[in-house]
C-alpha cells in the first residue's frame, strides 16, 4: 500500500475545487494546473501549488497529456486525479500516468478502454446477457451501414459518440433524409470533444427515465453500490437536475439494478468509483446505457444521502486500501437534489451565455451545499463547459428537499451571465417533477419560460430602479434604452 502525499488535479472549475477539498482534509498536498484565462480561478487560488499550461483552448491545455505529465514530474506528485470530462475517460492518459510511475485515481487503463468505447461495452454486456438498448455493437463505418441499422431497428434513432458522454455528439434522427447531415454534425462534435469521431446507433426509447447506479470497487475484489441517482431532467441530452433516491425507486428494483451494476463492474474488472447508467421504461424494465469510468458531476447527491465522500473513497482505493463499508452498511438517509447552475440563456433555447460575473451571492443555510468554480470577476468564455456551479440540498424527505431547493434557488443571485436558475425554479414548481413521473422528455414537453408571468410589482421595481440607475450613469435622457435593431435578429436567428 502506497500512501498518496501529493495529487495533481488534471481539471478546472468546480470539480478541481471539489477534489482539492477532499485531498486537503486527508492531509494530501494538491497541485492545480491552469490555462491562461484560468490564472486567477478558484482552483488555482485554493491548491497548494499551481502551474501554467500556457494556452487557451482545451486542446492546448487541459487535454495536453505531455504538458500535464511534465508538471506532475516537476511538482513531484505521486498521483493524478482526472476529475470528469477532459482526459478522465482517456485510456491513453491513464496509461501514460502509470508509465510515468504515478497513480491514476480511477480504473485501470484497459478497463477505461473496454468501457469507454461504448461499442465494446455493449459487446461485453451482451455476452453477460444484460439487457441493452437495441442498436449497433460496433461503430458504424459509413452512411450505408447507418441506414441499414436504422431501418432494421426503426426510426427514431439516437446517434451517439463511441468515445465519450455528456451529450456531446449525441443527436436524435427522425427521418432517413436527416441521417447523413446529422451523422456529420455528431462526428464533428465528437471529434472536438473527445478526439474520437466514432459513432454508433441506438434505438430511441420513447419515455424513459435516466437512472444510474454509483459503484465503488477496491483492488481486493470488493464491490458495492451506493444506490441510484435519477437524472431525467435534461436539455440537449445533458443533465440539469439530479436527485437521489429516484421517486419511482422501490427496494426491490434498487436491489436488482444495484446487483446488475455490481455484476457489470465485476465483468469489466472494475476498480475505483464508477457509474452504471440505465434507461428505465414505464414498466420499470431497465436497459444498460453506459458506464462512466470517473467521478460524475452529480456525485454529491449520493454523498449527501449516503454520508460518504466519494472523492475520498477514490483516493483510498487508489492507495490500495480496502473498502471501509460492506453492502449491508450502506443505508440511504433522506433525500438530496442537485441543480446545475450553467451560463445559459434559459429563455433562448439554452444557448451559452458568455460574460464576466459582476455579482455572485450563492445560497447558504441549513442543508445547502454549493460546489462552485467561479466568483466575482470570473469570465465565462466560449472555450470551456458553461457550468459555473452546483447547488445541492439535503432534506429529511423528497418534499422537504424540493422546498429547500426552491428556497435556495430564490436566494441565489448572480449577474453578468444568464443562468439556468429560472429553469431549475420552473422544474421545482412543476407538477410532473413534484409527483415524480417526469421522464427525459420533460424539457421538450413542458418547458415554456414565458408561461411564468412577470409580476406587476417586479415591473414597478425595475421601472423605478431604472430611473435611479440611468440617472447615475448619466443616461437619463440618453440612448441607453433606444430601440435596438437587435430585436429583429433575436427573434429570427435561432438555434436548432
Amino acid at each position, binding site marked *: 500500500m502506497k500512501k498518496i502525499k501529493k495529487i495533481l488535479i488534471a481539471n478546472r472549475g468546480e470539480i478541481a475545487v471539489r477534489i482539492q477539498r477532499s485531498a486537503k482534509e486527508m492531509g494530501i498536498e494538491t497541485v492545480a494546473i491552469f490555462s491562461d484565462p484560468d490564472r486567477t480561478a478558484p482552483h488555482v487560488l485554493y491548491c497548494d501549488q499551481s502551474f501554467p499550461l500556457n494556452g487557451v483552448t*482545451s486542446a492546448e491545455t487541459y487535454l495536453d497529456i505531455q504538458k500535464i505529465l511534465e508538471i506532475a514530474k516537476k511538482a513531484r506528485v505521486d498521483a493524478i486525479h482526472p476529475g470528469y470530462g477532459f482526459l478522465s475517460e482517456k485510456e491513453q492518459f491513464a496509461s501514460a500516468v502509470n508509465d510515468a510511475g504515478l497513480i491514476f485515481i480511477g480504473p485501470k487503463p484497459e478497463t477505461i478502454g473496454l468501457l469507454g468505447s461504448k461499442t465494446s461495452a455493449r459487446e461485453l454486456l451482451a455476452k453477460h446477457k444484460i439487457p441493452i438498448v437495441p442498436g449497433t455493437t460496433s461503430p458504424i463505418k459509413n452512411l450505408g451501414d447507418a441506414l441499414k441499422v436504422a431501418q432494421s431497428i426503426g426510426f427514431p434513432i439516437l446517434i451517439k459518440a463511441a468515445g465519450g458522454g455528456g451529450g*456531446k455528439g449525441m443527436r436524435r434522427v427522425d427521418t432517413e433524409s436527416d441521417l447523413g447531415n446529422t451523422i456529420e*454534425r455528431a462526428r*464533428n*462534435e465528437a471529434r472536438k*470533444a473527445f478526439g474520437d469521431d466514432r459513432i454508433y446507433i441506438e434505438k430511441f426509447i420513447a419515455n424513459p427515465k435516466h437512472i444510474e447506479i454509483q459503484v465503488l470497487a477496491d483492488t481486493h475484489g470488493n464491490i458495492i453500490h451506493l444506490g441510484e441517482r435519477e437524472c431525467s431532467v435534461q436539455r*440537449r441530452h445533458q443533465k440539469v437536475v439530479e436527485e437521489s433516491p429516484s421517486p419511482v425507486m422501490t427496494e426491490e428494483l434498487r436491489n436488482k439494478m444495484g446487483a446488475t451494476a455490481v455484476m457489470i463492474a465485476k465483468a469489466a474488472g472494475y476498480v475505483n468509483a464508477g457509474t452504471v447508467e440505465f434507461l428505465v421504461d414505464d414498466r420499470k424494465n431497465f436497459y444498460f446505457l453506459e458506464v462512466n469510468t470517473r467521478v460524475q458531476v452529480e456525485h454529491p447527491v449520493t454523498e449527501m444521502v449516503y454520508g460518504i465522500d466519494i472523492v475520498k473513497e477514490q483516493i483510498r482505493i487508489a492507495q490500495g486500501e480496502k473498502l471501509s463499508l460492506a453492502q449491508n452498511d450502506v443505508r440511504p438517509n433522506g433525500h438530496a437534489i442537485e441543480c446545475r447552475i450553467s451560463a445559459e*440563456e434559459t*429563455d*433562448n433555447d439554452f*444557448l*451559452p*451565455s*458568455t460574460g464576466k460575473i*459582476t*455579482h455572485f451571492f450563492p445560497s447558504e443555510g441549513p442543508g445547502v451545499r454549493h460546489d462552485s468554480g467561479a466568483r466575482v470577476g470570473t469570465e465565462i468564455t*466560449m472555450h*470551456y*463547459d*458553461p457550468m459555473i456551479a452546483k447547488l445541492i440540498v439535503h432534506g429529511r424527505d423528497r418534499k422537504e428537499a424540493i422546498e429547500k431547493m426552491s428556497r435556495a*434557488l*430564490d436566494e*441565489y*443571485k448572480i*449577474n*453578468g451571465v444568464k443562468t439556468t*436558475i*429560472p429553469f431549475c*425554479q420552473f422544474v421545482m414548481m412543476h407538477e410532473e417533477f413534484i409527483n415524480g413521473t417526469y421522464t427525459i422528455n420533460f424539457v421538450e414537453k413542458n418547458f415554456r419560460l414565458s408561461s*411564468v408571468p*412577470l409580476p406587476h*410589482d*417586479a*415591473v*414597478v*421595481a*425595475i*421601472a*423605478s*430602479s*431604472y*430611473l*435611479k*440607475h440611468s440617472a*447615475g450613469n448619466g443616461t437619463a435622457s440618453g440612448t*441607453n*434604452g*433606444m*430601440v*435596438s*435593431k*437587435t*430585436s*429583429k*435578429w433575436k427573434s*429570427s*436567428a*435561432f*438555434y*436548432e
Partner: protein
Amino acid sequence: MSNIILHIADHRVAIEDREEGLSVDGKLHDVNIHKVTEGEYSILIEGKSYHLFFHTWNTCLHAVIDNRVFEIKRHSLRDQLAERFLKTADDHSKAVTFRAPMPGLVTKIIRQVDLQVHEGEGILVVEAMKMENEIKTSKSGIIKKIFVREKQAVEKGDPLFTIE
C-alpha cells in the same frame, strides 16, 4: 420630469418621478430604492423587498430580477419615429439579416450565396462551448450575402447571412 415610456419585456409602462412618489401608469407607489453596489439595487415597494441588478448585454440594458433577465427599452418620440422608419425600410426590401445568437466559431458554411433556401434549412454551423449549432433560416428566399467564412470567430450579434 415628464413621462418616460419603458418597455420591460412585454410590458409597456409610463413612469413619472413626482414629488409625492413614483407614478407607474398613473398609479402612485411608495417606493424605497437603495443602490447597494454598482449595478445592484434594493427596492422596497410598499415594504415588499426586491433585489435587482442591471447588466448590459450586446449594448442593450437588461434588468435581472429573481434570476430572470428582461430587456429594457426606453421610448422617446424620436425612437418611435425611428422604429417606424426601420420597419418600413425592412418591409420594402424584404431582406432579413440573421445574426450570431452567441459568440463562437463558424465551422461550416452549408449553403452558398444565390441559392434558394426554405424556412428551417440550415445555412451554417457555429461552434460554441464545444457544441455545434446549426443556424437555420426562419425565412424562405435567396441567400443574398454571407458575411462570414469558415474558421472565423464571431461575436454575438455579428451578421451571418442575409435572406431576401
